């Protein structure tokens, strides 16, 4: 992507420097409101990684971000900016929730859970394929349509919950709970089964599913012809057409895979935690996925690492707003904003300067020889 930078610097140094700059900028803000940045960062790190419970929450948040981050990256490799992860995740949760409500009373878990996964992926896929079709064959810009589809998705969910799925007589806008067979084992239950003590948390076995999805995305993009065709289209649609690839098909396929990945968010939130359909189970994760994908350089490994970072920000941020007096939740949102700004939107602002610096460092020994 960046001709001036060596690969290692592009992959590791630049993101690290961007993160450091974001933290410094946030530190200045923290100091300006009269808090001690060092203390805040200490509390944040301890909150995110310092205990079994904190670490579990970090990974629980990260699971959702891995799904939405992968969704953004697959579309990105096909040259598409999928802003609709939010809506696709909502629809995925809806799909998983519907099959759970219908079948969980009589199907065993080993049928029920794969069925929920499949339904979630299919719903997310279908919801993303429509903007994909509109882009490929009708020329409607994918960024606009996917944003619109986010609103449609959340309105659809509200409508279904309020008018059709709410338990009669209940004040809470949520569906009836699923039967036990539609619940993914929590991580502490899973580990207890293996003889390891772990403190209870929402972290559940969908983390493994997320890591498996990352592996599958890696294999798809770099080891299959389908991924080759998809990346060729994303890098140069005209060259792809020359190579006998139909770019329109690629757009729809990439959006389908992207939507399916976003649709799997329901496995973490619905099958893993709430055990029922409710509002707000995605709560912005679709958008965080964009930042995660940008920061992770659209590579599955980078996305997993970036997801853990953002999971830590969410978890550690909650601890900070709890522990540090006068430090509100909004300050944490601001910190996240800085990271998105520096690692995402302005990811390459520092690149030219860094390239010059590295070049100067390399040529210095040679200069010394001449001198």
């Amino acid at each position, binding site marked *: *992507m960046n*001709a*001036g930078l060596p690969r290692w610097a592009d992959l590791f140094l630049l993101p690290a420097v961007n993160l450091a700059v974001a933290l410094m900028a946030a530190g200045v803000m923290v100091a300006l409101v009269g808090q001690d940045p060092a203390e805040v960062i200490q509390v944040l790190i301890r909150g995110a990684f310092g205990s079994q419970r904190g670490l579990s929450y970090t990974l629980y948040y990260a699971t959702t971000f891995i799904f939405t981050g992968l969704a953004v990256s697959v579309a990105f490799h096909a040259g598409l900016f999928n802003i609709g992860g939010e809506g696709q995740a909502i629809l995925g949760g809806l799909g998983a929730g519907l099959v759970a409500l219908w079948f969980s009373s009589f199907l065993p878990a080993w049928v029920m859970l794969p069925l929920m996964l499949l339904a979630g992926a299919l719903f997310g896929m279908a919801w993303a394929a429509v903007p994909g079709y509109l882009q490929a064959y009708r020329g409607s810009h994918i960024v606009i349509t996917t944003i619109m589809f986010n609103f449609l998705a959340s309105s659809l969910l509200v409508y279904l919950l309020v008018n059709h799925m709410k338990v009669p007589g209940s004040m809470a806008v949520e569906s009836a709970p699923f039967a036990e067979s539609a619940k993914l084992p929590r991580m502490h239950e899973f580990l207890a089964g293996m003889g390891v003590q772990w403190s209870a948390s929402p972290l559940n076995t969908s983390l493994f599913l997320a890591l498996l999805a990352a592996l599958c995305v890696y294999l798809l993009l770099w*080891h*299959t*012809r*389908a991924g*080759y*065709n998809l*990346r*060729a289209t994303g*890098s*140069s649609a*005209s*060259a*792809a*057409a*020359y*190579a*006998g690839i*139909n770019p329109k098909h690629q757009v729809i396929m990439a959006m389908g895979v992207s939507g399916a990945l976003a649709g799997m968010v329901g496995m973490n939130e619905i099958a893993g935690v709430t055990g029922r359909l409710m509002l707000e189970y995605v709560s912005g994760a679709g958008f965080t996925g964009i930042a995660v994908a940008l920061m992770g350089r659209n590579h599955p490994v980078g996305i997993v690492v970036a997801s853990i970072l953002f999971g830590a920000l969410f978890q550690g941020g909650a601890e900070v707003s709890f522990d540090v007096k006068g430090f509100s939740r909004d300050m944490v949102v601001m910190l996240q904003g800085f990271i998105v700004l520096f690692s995402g939107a302005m990811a390459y602002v520092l690149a030219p300067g860094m390239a010059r610096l590295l*070049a100067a460092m390399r040529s210095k020994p040679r200069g010394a020889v001449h001198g």
Partner: protein
Amino acid sequence: MTGIHKRFGAVQANADVHLSVAEGTVHGIVGENGAGKSTLMSVLYGFYSCDSGSIQVSGKPATIRNSHEAIALGIGMVHQHFMLVDTLSALENVMLGAEPHVLLHKAEAQVRGKLAGLMESTGLRVDLDALVADLSVGDRQRLEILKTLYRGARILILDEPTAVLTPQETEQLFGVLALLRDNGTTILLITHKLKEVMRLCDFVTVMRGGRVVQEVAIADTSIESLAEAMVGRKVQMGRQGEATQAPGAVLLKTRGVVVRDVLQVVRLHGLDIELRAGEIVGIAGVSGNGQSEVLEVLSGLLAPSGGAMEVGGASFHAGAWLDPRKARALGVAHVPEDRHERAMVMSFQAWESAVLGYQWLASYCRQGWMDHSHMVGATVDMMDRFDVRPRNAHLMSASFSGGNQQKLVLARELGQAPTVLLVGQPTRGVDIGAIEFIYSQLRSMRDAGCAVLVVSSELDEILALADRVIVMNQGRISGELPIAECTEARLGMLMIGGAA
């Protein structure tokens, strides 16, 4: 310009370059791609600043930090790709950015008066009220020159000015340039066409590898010795022998192929073409007269709105045309005109670009899984056979020079033993050393019984390669000649739609 150094990363684009141009002369700068001509001119015109070295204009030291300062010093540049606004008139283009009055109608009147004088003294005539979009390419170039002269240029830099002109338009341009020189304008001509250098220039500077290797008066040199200085060894250009065999069976045949663009404008009016085994057919014509459409429709990239085609034992007609994948399966290989847009994916590694279009081959992919080691191995093979440098299959496609990219594309397309080979601009942006090699490869494909179609905007290239020449004008075949009957003048007449 004295001791100019310019380095981009690891590349020394200009090393200790000295260039002195006498006032009122035409000075040619020749060299292969990447020899540093463009960098040097960009330093002079203020696009880049040099790392070290100095520039003197008319005896006075000058610092040129941007094009405004260059213009202020009387240096004007006519780019290869014209810098004109299509939707404005010729007059408006001239005064754009240099309006002499805040009120437009007053400004226009002033500019018009000044231009009338300029046109009178230079012979550069352009209809000032026509929209640029309606002007011919030759007119646009005259307008560009007028524009720079209007801004007070006394030193005129021309970057590959004849690349888009017919032989007749080139003649006209040279007449104008000679007149400008006689009026005291200094002209710097960047080109790789040595014939033109010999015709027009007074002095010539040859660059190679970022250095000046020769600076001579035209009277003391020849095309051969200039070519040798450019490449660093003797080069054999031009035709080498006639076709070794009479053309064989018809391998590709079209009837009445009509192509319309998105605006429903007809780009090809009923194309009838026959390609035979063991023959190189050249398509000549000024760029944009339907040659690109011929390549795209024959290779399946473009679906025609009428007509039919027979190739590889299958027949196709409008509405059920072949696609590029099908075309490759039938033995039609295609080296596209545009390397950057079509032939390669610039952000892919070399081996990924080297399988582009052939990713469906069973040897590359089994059940949809790509066999990386086999693909990389095949790429290393291609690089060996066609001497692609550097021999690194994992380097980014964009990091190769134009010549090496083209060699890799040719290796890919020639490698699967095609029966029909379509080649667009085989040597665009390719240096002389590689041109020789590419020509010999295309000739050996012909000798092996392949039907070869070459589209080129360089007449010399058509004359060097083709056994039969088709000339196109405005989407029609305006003439067809065996190579023995081709002269530049006859082809030039056909190119502008006249009778040969």
